[in-house]
């Protein structure tokens, strides 16, 4: 990208300047409708009435609710939230692993033989990929909204919603990690006649175990947040309790629950750090 500057020119025009101006103009033109559409009016935050409401609500945060009955209820709800996340992620894993095996190109046997994949397996692979895209593109809360209609209120809808969304996400990212891991070991195993599962377990998996585990714990943390959120559409757990407390504007209960969130995520963080140290 060497730019030859004419020595006869006394000023040295910046070749990137016009591009920068254009980009800034385009950004401004795009920003305007965005600001309009999202009703971006920060000053309403400083409006006397909303300030009063906010102050009132925040003041009710202190002290956090700590009656014994409430804490026991909260413990049960917290456990239910964790259980929904864990069960959902387990199911997601169980379905993501076969899907990953199908979607990973470096585990293809037919490509090895002719240098190209057989048409049938290429089609299967493409279908699986589209399925993964569809599964992860629908947000878990939308899955939950739909499943609640079919299964009724309760944790089953939450577990299934997490399982569906996360199998898509895990499947895609696992396939990416396995493909970017050293293909050599896998390929030589396949060439020597070992099956796909054996190639996975002895070739690709050891090489990328740390990355796989750390991504899975990260997703577990996301699943906990997701299962909190699904409580709002009636899938149980701490989210449902939060919805009720918010509707009653019980600030003390809300602040206790916020503290529980922070602790939950901190725990997930600790576990993930511990695992990464162990495997890294």
């Amino acid at each position, binding site marked *: 990208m060497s730019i030859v500057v004419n020595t006869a020119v006394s000023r040295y025009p910046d070749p990137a300047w016009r591009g920068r101006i254009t980009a800034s103009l385009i950004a401004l033109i795009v920003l305007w409708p965005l600001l*309009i559409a999202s009703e971006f009016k920060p000053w309403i*935050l400083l409006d006397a009435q909303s300030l009063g409401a*906010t102050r009132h609500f925040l003041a009710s945060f202190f002290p956090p609710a700590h009656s014994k009955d409430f804490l026991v209820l909260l413990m049960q709800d917290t456990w239910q939230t964790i*259980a*929904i996340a*864990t069960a959902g992620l387990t199911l997601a894993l169980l379905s993501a692993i076969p899907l990953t095996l199908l979607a990973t190109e470096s585990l293809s046997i037919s490509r090895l033989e002719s240098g190209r994949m057989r048409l049938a397996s290429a089609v299967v692979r493409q279908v699986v990929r589209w399925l993964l895209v569809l599964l992860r593109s629908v947000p878990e809360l939308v899955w939950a909204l739909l499943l609640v209609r079919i299964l*009724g209120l309760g944790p*089953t809808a939450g577990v299934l919603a997490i399982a569906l969304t996360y199998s898509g996400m895990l499947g895609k990212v696992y396939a990416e990690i396995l493909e970017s891991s050293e293909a050599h070991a896998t390929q030589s195993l396949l060439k020597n006649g070992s099956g796909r599962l054996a190639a996975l377990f002895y070739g690709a998996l050891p090489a990328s175990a740390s990355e796989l585990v750390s991504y899975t714990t990260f997703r577990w943390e996301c699943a906990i947040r997701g299962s909190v959120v699904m409580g709002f559409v009636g899938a149980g757990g701490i989210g449902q309790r939060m919805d009720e407390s918010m509707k009653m504007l019980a600030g003390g209960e809300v602040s206790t629950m916020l503290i529980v*969130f922070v602790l939950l995520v901190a725990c997930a963080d600790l576990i993930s750090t511990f695992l990464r140290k162990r495997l890294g």
Partner: protein
Amino acid sequence: MQHCPSTVPTRIKPATLLFLLGLLTLICASFYSLALQWSELFTADAARSSIEFLRGFAAPELAWPFLIKVAQGTLETLSMSALGTGIASICGLTLALPASGRFGPAARLAMRLILNILRSIPELIWALILLIAAGLGPFAGTLALAVHTTGVLGRLFADALENMPPAPEVILRINGAKPMAAFFYAALPQILPQLMSYTLYRWENNIRAAAILGIIGAGGLGQMLKYHLSLFQMQQAASVIIAMLVLISLVDGTSFWLRRRLTSQ
């Protein structure tokens, strides 16, 4: 296996075994305590009602007036995600300065704690809280996305600042540049590509979050979905879901393209 791979098989340590046992217990306890209603899922009755439910979606509503409303909702969701992410990237960078230890270890610890709190609370709950301050509508959703994402990006940015090679900035400071000037001339150009790629990743995440924030009244496609589902207007709901899917894949594509452009140059 006749062909052992070169990787040495790892011996399982007692601590690892204990951890695996704990994990297994957690999983079993989860399934046991939830008392999931699998039976309802796999009965002929359930299958019939699901099929009926799904059939309700068939032929999504495509009337022009409704499509225009969907387009408005799509634009609202898109703006919420883009503005929320944009605000968060600026706030995140500002907060990452103290969080990377530039104003002493005490400020670093305090700021990391704040960022962790912002990050731990999901967008939807921020939106619930902010609804009180900002009123119903997309603005509360934008703020909620911005607050949560600030926590996420702030921590990532702080880590990037701590891990970059310090020499370019150190030499400018030695030569008498002021700290802020040295930051903008040496530190920022080094980490900028990384910051942009983190921000784009979060945008992909936030478009999904923005799509659902409406469910609690923060505008956009989510609000439409909740409305039509609660009235059992399945065909309208189907259109809204399709709009969500299209929007999400468009944002994913744009972000992927931008990230590739950032790294290739």
